[in-house]
């Protein structure tokens, strides 16, 4: 394969090639932008970002996206119950663009910019991973575009910074472990010693911290035993289970989720961990439908909100449950609920803004003004944007205990206790960690 008379291509040719390459890059972009200016009925374009691949896909991303699809279709047909019964958003058809959150924060920042700039979405609803939330929030703020974070747990978003255009329509993760500790106390469960197993990354480390601090307030005599931090995605917990079993403790706490949690339960159950110790799981509801009878009875768990089997009865919830069940043959767990409350909040805010501005598509400022300090009903209870200058939601939560119901062939939750929002969320202008350490100063539990 010889090049005949290989004259060295001059640098000028190289330059020309580079420019041609650049033009080639621009061309598809230009084409993609052209159809955006569609004539006729206006649409409200929403970018929805969640995990479509990777380890969070099966437990959080895909159920949430499924929930979004079902809800968007119902909205467009005007089938939602009042006050959400207007078709689409204020009459405008909702067009959803789905983006995979997998691939790291750098990629997500790029995708967010693409969504706003190239796809010209009016709002973005997304992000499960706290790292991604922290990375994209300043970008939306800088671009002055509307962003709703619907799922990520870290309290840092609105505790470390202030935003005008970024909102989170769900409580942050402090609520989960505070409620868990309160449940133990309310039920008088013996907790003189406790072991912990959490994944060694921010979520697991924060959960561990929140639970330890909460226990220090509610059970001052309790001693911490094993404090295990397996790698995220480890999947093999034989050694950890041996450690947890050999150090007897009344309570075993974990914030494991997804495939890791399922592996842990499958490996720990047969070895009797659930009988030897009271296992408490902060975010485990999403594994119940899959594990079925492999889920041991008597485990105490939460859903990061009153979701799924823990959800309060209401016409809105019944309707939501039925449309999800009909499309996907399973009941919605926490992820689709959180997506639902985000989309309902978006719809509510947009329609409120449109009522104020005479029926036109709301600008980012109008949307932000409408959602700040707002409240609305969702299938998981009432959502109130009380923290973070009116940008961070608080909501109620619930904790229950598992039992496999052979007749219904599914896991049900007994001994459900509800915790009002003001009981398990920090008050305004107090950081979560400080609030717990102050023995939950200002908490209103009935």
């Amino acid at each position, binding site marked *: 394969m010889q090049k005949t008379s290989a004259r060295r291509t001059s640098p000028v040719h190289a330059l020309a090639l580079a420019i041609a390459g650049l033009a080639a890059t621009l061309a598809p972009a230009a084409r993609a932008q052209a159809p955006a200016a569609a004539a006729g009925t206006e649409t409200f374009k929403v970018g929805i970002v969640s995990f479509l691949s990777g380890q969070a896909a099966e437990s959080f991303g895909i159920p949430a996206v499924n929930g979004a699809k079902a809800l968007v279709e119902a909205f467009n047909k005007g089938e939602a119950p009042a006050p959400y019964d207007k078709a689409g958003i204020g009459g405008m058809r909702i067009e959803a663009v789905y983006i995979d959150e997998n691939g790291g924060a750098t990629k997500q920042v790029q995708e967010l910019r693409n969504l706003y700039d190239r796809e010209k979405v009016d709002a973005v609803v997304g992000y499960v991973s706290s790292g991604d939330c922290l990375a994209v929030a300043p970008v939306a703020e800088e671009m002055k575009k509307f962003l709703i974070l619907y799922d990520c747990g870290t309290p840092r978003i609105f505790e470390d910074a202030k935003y005008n255009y970024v909102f989170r329509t769900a409580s942050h993760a402090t609520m989960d472990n505070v409620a868990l500790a309160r449940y133990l106390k309310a039920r008088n469960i013996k907790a003189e010693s406790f072991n912990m197993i959490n994944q060694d990354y921010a979520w697991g480390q924060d959960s561990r911290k929140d639970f330890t601090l909460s226990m220090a307030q509610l059970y001052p005599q309790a001693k911490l035993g094993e404090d295990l931090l397996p790698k995220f995605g480890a999947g093999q917990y034989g050694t950890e289970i041996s450690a947890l079993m050999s150090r007897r403790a009344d309570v075993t706490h974990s914030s494991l989720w997804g495939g890791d949690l*399922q592996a842990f339960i*499958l490996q720990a159950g047969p070895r009797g961990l659930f009988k030897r110790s009271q296992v408490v799981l902060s975010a485990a509801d999403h594994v119940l439908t899959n594990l079925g009878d492999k889920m041991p009875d008597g485990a105490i768990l939460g859903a990061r909100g009153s979701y799924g089997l823990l959800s309060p009865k209401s016409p809105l919830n019944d309707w939501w449950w039925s449309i999800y069940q009909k499309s996907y043959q399973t009941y919605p767990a926490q992820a689709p609920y959180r997506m639902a409350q985000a989309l309902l909040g978006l719809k509510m805010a947009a329609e409120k803004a449109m009522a104020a501005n005479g029926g036109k598509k709301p600008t980012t400022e109008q949307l932000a003004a409408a959602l700040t300090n707002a409240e609305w009903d969702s299938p998981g209870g009432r959502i109130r944007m009380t923290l973070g200058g009116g940008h961070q939601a608080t909501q109620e939560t619930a904790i229950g205990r598992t039992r496999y119901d052979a007749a219904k062939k599914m896991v049900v939750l007994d001994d459900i206790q509800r915790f009002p929002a003001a009981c398990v969320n920090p008050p305004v202008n107090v950081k979560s960690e400080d609030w717990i350490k102050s023995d939950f100063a200002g908490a209103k539990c009935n």
Partner: protein
Amino acid sequence: MATALTILIDGLSYASWLFIVALGLTLVFGVLKILNIAHGSFYALGAYAAASFVAWFASMKFAPEWSLVAMLFAAVAVAVLVAPLTERGLMRFFYGRDEVLLVLVTYALFLVLEDVTKLLWGANPYYVSEPYAMFGNVEIGDQVYVGYDFMLMGLAVAVGLAVWWGLNRTRQGKIVLAVIHSEEVAASMGVNVSRVYMLAFGVGVFLAALGGAFTAPLISVQPGVSVGVIIVSFAVVIIGGLGSIEGAAIGALIVGLARSFAVHVMPQAELFSIYIVMALVLMVRPEGLFQRIQARKI
């Protein structure tokens, strides 16, 4: 507090799992000189295939003991279907190229297989738990173990012995050893190196799939199971020496025991214990513990 016995049993249990999974990787490197990132994907394919085969056997009303056979079949099926396709259809275009380029090819293959698995089996989790309960529980002192984990230890020994015997006591195996030592000389002696490559790659894929198939009862088989396996197998084969069976065994033992010790005694260090061991081995004895000394060609 954990006794030394607990640490030992946990270490051996984890080491057996590591050995089964890492053996295929070291074999493929030894023969083909490819460090196969897609090894994790073959593992995942084995797990998914096991889920399907066990479900199929169960639907045909076989006794539960047959689920073990089903898992074995699953591994064989994956090897038979995937290995020739990958090796002939993809890898052979890149033989002779830089080692690191081949690593990138396998990385691309890993990406492709991630989505292919998702397309074939969907994103929902699969469970293969019948085999797990088959061996009952074993109580040792204060601890309760699942018999299945001890079966895995037995399987690891069996697989190790089988591969060793296959390499050292059969004619075909000795030919493979010759290719591992020096493929040029073997080729010049009349060995059909290309067929040896196919065989070795096939066995490598089989072993990866076997690892996945027999791990399936312990986990929920879903997208993402391949990722955790890759780095940990790399560490084992690097420590033991690339291309060495004994090395894979010793590497697995070292990693397994180190991890068990870390978890029981010093849990905070667990996250990077494996990388530190890998880095230390590379700094002190880069060819691993069992790598054959290679003559340098001038």
